[in-house]
């Protein structure tokens, strides 16, 4: 009667059973994100964004509201997911690699950007044309960081102008006026006075991080990579490390930072207690001071970096996070306009200060009256923060932070270089030669 033979029927049963089981076990997978083409009930186009900082989400929520106010025909609704740093980066990398599942826009930290430029075909949208009208006001080094082959792929939140934060309680006690410190030699001499009069270290050196070192290399207008090769053993880099090492061993005005890093809890506590007279960190360190070093409110003076020689820059832009439009975005043109307008317009740029406490990427707004309005930062540092920073605006150096070999070079420096040189007084030139050698070997192997 049956059309199928017994054997075939057996197979059919098995197949049907399999389909049944499969449909059950895979049911959980289908309930993913709703498609971004969807509109909300009130007719706004829906887009997704990934970031790893809660306050960045607040900033973008505000940016979307502003956009909707200014563009009544192009209403958007931004769904923002805040994920932990590592997790967000892994997810984004996998999603972009596999060609689906990526958000429309995303935050990419400067140190992570390099891995996306490995192929010279970044999985992000080119925003060069959108950025163009704002170029004259943007701090150039900041857009350069996210430029590959002349195309801009992301816009940063801030400049990260590196400053020296002096603890004036200690400086006054030692009778040293920071404004007389012009060169690193002056700084060391001042440090000796501070150490002698108060017994307090002038500063700290990092062993598991490289902010001060990179700032020192950048201010000499040098770099860490050239022609795809690590060049840490060249003069500028050796001078930087030697200066830091001498502070510890020769002049004894510095010690290795608590936790090996100036941006960790142990260090905040130490600096708050007045264990150091000064620290070199980017402008975003202000937020750490406000949150973690309440004792020093009203006692910090900020100033540009000392220089090595005439012609050096007095600052460097360090750290950063770009917002990018991914190549999987739904309405690319609209989102590119949205991202650029939110960050580079005058209004948006000022908000990176008022909401996030960053030094805006548009240096022309630094002196706008908005920047002096009282907030938790002006309460702590005084209202003239940007007046003091404005003198540095044309002296912000940068490095090839987003060169695709940069992560390997930094990794080698922090693994085989800094700890040895700073905690065990290893010979600077020899160590950096070795770091170059092993970094170059790795760069070559990965090509």
């Amino acid at each position, binding site marked *: 009667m049956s059309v199928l033979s017994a054997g075939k029927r057996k197979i059919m049963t098995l197949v049907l*059973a399999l389909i049944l089981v499969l449909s059950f076990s895979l049911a959980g997978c289908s309930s993913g994100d709703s498609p971004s083409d969807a509109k909300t009930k009130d007719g706004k186009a829906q887009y997704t964004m990934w970031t790893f900082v809660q306050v960045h989400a607040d900033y973008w929520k505000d940016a979307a509201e502003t956009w909707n106010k200014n563009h009544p025909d192009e209403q958007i609704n931004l769904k923002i997911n805040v994920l932990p740093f590592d997790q967000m980066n892994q997810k984004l990398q996998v999603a972009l690699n596999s060609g689906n599942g990526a958000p429309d826009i995303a935050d990419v930290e400067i140190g992570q950007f390099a891995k996306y430029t490995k192929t010279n075909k970044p999985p992000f949208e080119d925003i060069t044309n959108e950025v163009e009208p704002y170029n004259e006001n943007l701090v150039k080094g900041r857009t350069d960081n996210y430029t590959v082959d002349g195309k801009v792929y992301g816009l940063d939140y801030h400049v990260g102008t590196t400053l020296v934060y002096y603890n004036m309680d200690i400086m006054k006690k030692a009778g040293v006026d920071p404004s007389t410190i012009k060169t690193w030699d002056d700084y060391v001499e001042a440090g000796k006075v501070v150490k002698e009069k108060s017994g307090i270290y002038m500063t700290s050196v990092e062993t598991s991080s490289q902010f001060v070192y990179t700032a020192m290399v950048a201010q000499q207008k040098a770099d860490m990579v050239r022609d795809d090769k690590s060049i840490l053993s060249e003069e500028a880099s050796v001078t930087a490390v030697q200066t830091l090492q001498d502070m510890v061993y020769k002049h004894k005005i510095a010690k290795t930072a608590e936790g090996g890093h100036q941006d960790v809890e142990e260090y905040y506590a130490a600096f708050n207690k007045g264990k150091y007279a000064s620290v070199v960190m980017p402008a975003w360190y202000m937020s750490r001071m406000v949150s973690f070093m309440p004792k020093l409110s009203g006692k910090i003076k900020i100033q540009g970096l000392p220089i090595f020689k005439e012609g050096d820059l007095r600052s460097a832009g360090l750290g950063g996070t770009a917002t990018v439009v991914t190549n999987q975005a739904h309405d690319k043109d609209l989102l590119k306009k949205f991202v650029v307008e939110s960050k580079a317009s005058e209004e948006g740029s000022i908000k990176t200060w008022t909401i996030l406490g960053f030094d805006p990427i548009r240096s022309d707004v630094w002196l706008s009256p908005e920047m002096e309005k009282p907030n938790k930062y002006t309460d702590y540092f005084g209202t003239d923060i940007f007046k003091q920073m404005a003198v540095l605006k044309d002296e912000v150096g940068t490095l090839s932070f987003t060169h695709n070999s940069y992560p390997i070079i930094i990794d080698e420096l922090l693994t085989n270089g800094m*700890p040895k040189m700073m905690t065990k007084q290893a010979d600077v030139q020899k160590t950096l030669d070795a770091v170059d050698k092993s970094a170059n070997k790795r760069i070559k192997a990965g090509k």
Partner: protein
Amino acid sequence: MTNDITAQISPKSKSPLKREKKKINMQKIAPYLFVSPFIIVFLVFSLYPFINSIIMSFQRISGFDETTFIGLENYKRLFADPVFYKALWNVTRYTFWTILILIPLPLLLALVMNNKNTKYKYFFRSIFFIPVLTSTVIVGLVFKFAFSKEPTGVFNSWLSYLNIGPIDWLNNSGTAMFALVIVCVWRWLGVNMIYFLSGLQNIPRELYECAEIDGASKWDKFKSITLPMIKPITTYVLTISILAGFSLFNETYVYWGAQSPDNIGTTFLTYIYKTAFSDGDFGYACTLGVIMFVIVVAINLIQVSVRGLFKED
């Protein structure tokens, strides 16, 4: 006639047989049906990635849609890679120390806990088990601060009473290994104790009674009854310790992140993680994964065969 008979008989005799056959078929299918959710999940989420990573270990993957087969290039690179040997040396040392401590010590504790004269047994069992319930990351953070190089760090302040230190714990190979092993022992002592305890409780009392009648000493009883009887447990603990040792990640990642001075905290997994997610070198990361798999399987096979477990007892 005969033809007729067969014609008559055969349909009759065939149909019950057929029904019987169908039943058997369903019975045959049912178990597969029941295990199929696991099998499918295993195929999709374990076997497929596993096979794919073996394939990827022969490729150069420079990110987005750019993959090229490069034959044994990755493997050649691996055998010339000093960091790989450093990682191998680190995990081997770590595994050695954890096994050296985490088998005799929990066994001793289990013996004490199993002794009928021990007071507050249940209380102590819970105490030893509590560390397992904590999160490795949080524990790692606490220990990281405890192992601070500053004189105010917990361990350094203890040592200061003996006029030793301060020691830069997490910056030297030996002390760093100590810091890793301490966390591991603190955390897994209780679990291993429970394993051994369950083994001890399964040993029939009669064996000990017989031995006592024959005049065996406590040591004789331990050596000739307890140890052989808990052999399966020891094997199990040894195997999972080797697996855990070689896949060490959390503790070292919390202590140092992906970069440790002179690679003193680099393990297979941190190196794989770094290669894949910070260098974006997925092909080489897969090669490391494949080699790690081969090494762990080899060590466990050796361990099991040396201990004679393939022989029928």
